[in-house]
């Protein structure tokens, strides 16, 4: 008997309307107070290819992906074989028994729960399209009985979802009841795996990272958003526009205090962002790896011309289509060093929707303060899946840090304006917006060929001097990006991670504790790395670096920027395109201890 602890996988056909039914399932559990995490694994396809939707329920609040599946709702004949195979021994297979299960698919170590879904719907709905749509709702009804989900929570959700489209409410409820009625009459309900109302979710919300990031841009004061559609980042721009239309219109006129441009490509998107930022508006774009590649030339210009620009990079796997709708942390190097010439860019690494919101808003302050591009490095797993998050909060009265910008009055007081003079010793000059003053403060923006007064020069000394100043600015950046989050109990070994690799970490650490492996932890939140990151590495004999890419990109950045001995950093890598699981982390670390013949017991440093 297991309560509030299982993984259920829905295997569907893409485009069959399953995603909304499955989301409703997850949300119902969340509304019963359970910590839930969802993962939609979808193909680069609109209709027809297989898709899976995992919901993890964990009494202990673990939100990372788990390798094993306890309940399989197998609704896609094309993937029956692999779906049945991935069930854990003792698991439950829910399938449409209108057609009998092929003999070779049967397993003696699982429980088969057949429901004649097609037959049930045939008698109820005349329209074939409706039958397809309501199939998902019908198994949802059956699950409510099998797992003991409070039925009025689900019906309540149907009512809110179709508010205003009342004609849809009744048939949806009917479909739910068909499934529930069938299960109650013919199946043994509830199963030994079931749910029970708890208060574990607290005041938390369930939201995807992209929506939170879009809200972050809105609260962070972005007025120009230019973007080009690309999965998994599209919903960032869409969320920004949706909420801006609700919350950012001028009271009397109804006019918009923002502009959203769907550009013709990513080159244009970043160009618009840079043009707007140059002219003093907070602006951003949302993209993914291919977009970062296309934006590279412009990112270099923005670095040298010292223009604030905010980019939300929702990372995905490699090129073309297919794998790209899977998650990875694979753009670190291309984002950190994007472009020609000596360039480096500020990166932030959120690991929860709340951080997508907070870091998302903070990007704009950092970009303005540092006068340089700032890239928020999130990923598909965080961006597109609903997950449990602390509620979003904003401190009223918080001002925007617009950085060093001179007004007309400021300019009056300045004897000779020098755009690239390092007046304060932090590597950051003072900028002016176009049109500020009739006679003072105008300058011509170009890449690198200029002196401190923005006058044209190709002098080697001026160039090098400028490049050294940009390094001073980089140093300043390392103090301004969000600090790493450290937990330490004086262990010999540490573990370092960032972004969504943090999600399975509490579970992985618990699993390792059971094996007597104890690790201090550090979660990186920003690049350039602060001193605390190097100190943590220095303080430990060795440090595991967990990431979701093949080439250990974070390790590369650490080794390169900190001139570290690579041997002290042990990579724990997963790059299969699903999010990294606690099991993977635990297995690789355990293996390392075994191979290196390291003692498992805690050895606290004196």
């Amino acid at each position, binding site marked *: 008997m297991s309560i509030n602890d299982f993984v259920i996988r829905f295997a569907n056909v893409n485009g069959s309307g399953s995603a909304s039914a499955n989301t409703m399932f997850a949300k119902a559990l969340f509304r019963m107070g359970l910590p839930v995490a969802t993962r939609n694994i979808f193909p680069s396809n609109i209709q027809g290819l297989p898709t899976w939707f995992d919901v993890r329920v964990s009494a202990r609040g673990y939100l990372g992906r788990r390798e094993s599946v306890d309940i399989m709702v197998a609704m896609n004949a094309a993937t029956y074989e692999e779906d049945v195979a991935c069930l854990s021994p003792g698991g439950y297979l829910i399938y449409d028994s209108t057609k009998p299960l092929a003999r070779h698919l049967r397993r003696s170590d699982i429980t088969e729960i057949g429901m004649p879904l097609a037959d049930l719907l045939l008698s109820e709905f005349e329209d074939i399209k409706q039958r397809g749509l309501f199939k998902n709702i019908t198994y949802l009804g059956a699950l409510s009985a099998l797992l003991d989900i409070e039925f009025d929570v689900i019906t309540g959700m149907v009512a809110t979802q179709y508010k205003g489209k009342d004609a849809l409410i009744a048939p949806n409820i009917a479909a739910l009841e068909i499934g529930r009625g069938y299960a109650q009459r013919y199946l043994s309900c509830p199963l030994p795996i079931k749910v029970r109302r708890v208060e574990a979710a607290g005041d938390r*919300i369930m939201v995807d990272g992209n929506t939170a990031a879009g809200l972050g841009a*809105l609260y962070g004061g972005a007025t120009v958003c230019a973007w080009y559609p690309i999965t998994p980042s599209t919903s960032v721009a869409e969320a920004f526009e949706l909420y801006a239309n609700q919350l950012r219109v001028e009271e009397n006129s109804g006019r918009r*205090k923002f502009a959203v441009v769907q550009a013709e490509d990513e080159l*244009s998107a970043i160009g618009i962002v840079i043009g707007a*930022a140059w002219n003093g508006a907070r602006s951003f774009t949302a993209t993914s790896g291919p977009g970062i590649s296309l934006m590279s030339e412009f990112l270099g210009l923005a670095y040298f011309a010292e223009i604030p620009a905010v980019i939300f990079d929702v990372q995905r796997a490699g090129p073309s289509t297919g794998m790209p709708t899977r998650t990875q942390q694979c753009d670190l190097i291309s984002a950190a060093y994007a472009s020609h010439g000596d360039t480096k860019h500020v990166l932030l690494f959120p690991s929860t929707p709340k951080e997508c919101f907070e870091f998302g808003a903070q990007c704009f302050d950092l970009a303005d303060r540092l006068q340089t591009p700032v890239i928020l490095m999130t990923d598909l797993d965080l961006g597109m899946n609903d997950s449990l998050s602390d509620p979003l909060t*904003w401190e009223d009265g918080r001002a925007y840090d617009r950085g060093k910008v001179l007004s007309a009055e400021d300019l009056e007081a300045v004897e000779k304006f020098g755009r690239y003079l390092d007046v304060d010793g932090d590597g950051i000059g003072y900028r002016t*917006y176009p*049109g500020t003053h009739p*006679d003072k403060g*105008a300058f011509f923006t170009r890449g690198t060929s200029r002196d401190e007064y923005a006058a044209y020069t190709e002098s080697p000394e001026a160039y090098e001097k400028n490049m050294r100043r940009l390094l001073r600015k980089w140093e300043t950046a390392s103090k301004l990006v969000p600090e790493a989050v450290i937990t330490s109990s004086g262990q010999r070994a540490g573990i370092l991670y960032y972004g969504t690799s943090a999600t399975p970490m509490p579970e992985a650490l618990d699993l390792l504790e059971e094996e007597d492996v104890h690790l201090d932890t550090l979660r990186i939140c920003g690049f350039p790395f602060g001193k605390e990151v190097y100190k943590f590495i220095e303080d430990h004999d060795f440090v595991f670096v967990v990431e979701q890419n093949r080439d250990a990109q974070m390790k590369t950045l650490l080794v390169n920027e900190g001139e570290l001995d690579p041997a002290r950093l042990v990579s724990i890598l997963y790059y299969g395109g699903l999010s990294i699981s606690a099991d993977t982390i635990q297995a690789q670390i355990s293996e390392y201890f075994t191979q290196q013949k390291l003692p498992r017991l805690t050895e606290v440093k004196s």
Partner: protein
Amino acid sequence: MTFVAKPRVHHPKLPVNEIGLTRRDYEGPVSTLCAGCGHDSVSAAIVQACAELSLPPHKFAKISGIGCSSKTPSYFLSKSHGFNSVHGRMPSVATGANLANRDLYCIGVSGDGDTASIGLGQFAHIVRRRINMLYVVDNNGTYGLTKGQFSATNDKGSTSKKGLPNLNEPIDLVSLALQIGASFVARSFSGDKKQLVPLIKAALIHKGFGFIDVISPCVAFNNHQGSTKSYDYIRDHSEPVVVTDYFAAQEEITVDYAPGTSEEVHMPDGSVLCLQKLDEKFDVHDKVHALNYVQTRQAQGEVVTGLLYVDPDASDCHEVLDTVQRPLNELDVDDLCPGNAALEMVNAGFR
């Protein structure tokens, strides 16, 4: 090359405009382009147009891509900010600049390589976006800054500096602009101040996208052996360029001809350009007619100049996006941040 500050001699007799400024107030530092380069004439025409319109010289955003032409914004309106951006991408930067502050006059300067080759996509889309700006192409049919390769506006059959014929069809930017919906389309010649200055003025005050394709000879890359056009003439009248890194100073090519008439211009590449100036009776509100006319004349070997089309009721990007009247870059946290109470409502939607 180092920046040379231009001595600002005070001329008490220089005429002042309505806001008490002289032409000098609209100029920039000395150009570093080749002497006689058509692009400098375009800059001078912009200076004159802005001064005559009495526009405040610091209220411009000057944006360009990369090329000799794209360098020119640093040589005019030095009281305004300028941005020499990325090759072929001026339209996107100009879009952003215009979105951020709708009150500034936006001038984009580009070349034929910048606009018709690497930047053709961005050009097409800025036209569609209806950005309120003056978009000038200094069209010399070649890549000046990278030393004389063919550009996409170069006529088929003409030969390059190395004697290779251009086998590809040219792109006619005014036809393209007309087709994809520019609300102000004109063509002129850099040396024809009488025509160019009024066109620039009209495009600046036009609300919407104002496009001027300015034929602007490159005097440096004129060594066109075997040109089908009258190379002999130019050889007899100018310094032949033999050493590739030596460019003799050339005279600026100017024209002065009446509306409704044609004029032959001897280009530095040895070709003869037959300009045909639209007469006053030309209907500038009929796009289809304009397109037809340009194409018909082109088939006859003539290059039509003048205002081809204008839609006085055109809308601009800000109208389409329904943005506030105040420039977006002036809005601060009180205008922009919805506050925590609103966020709590948003949170409620996620429960």
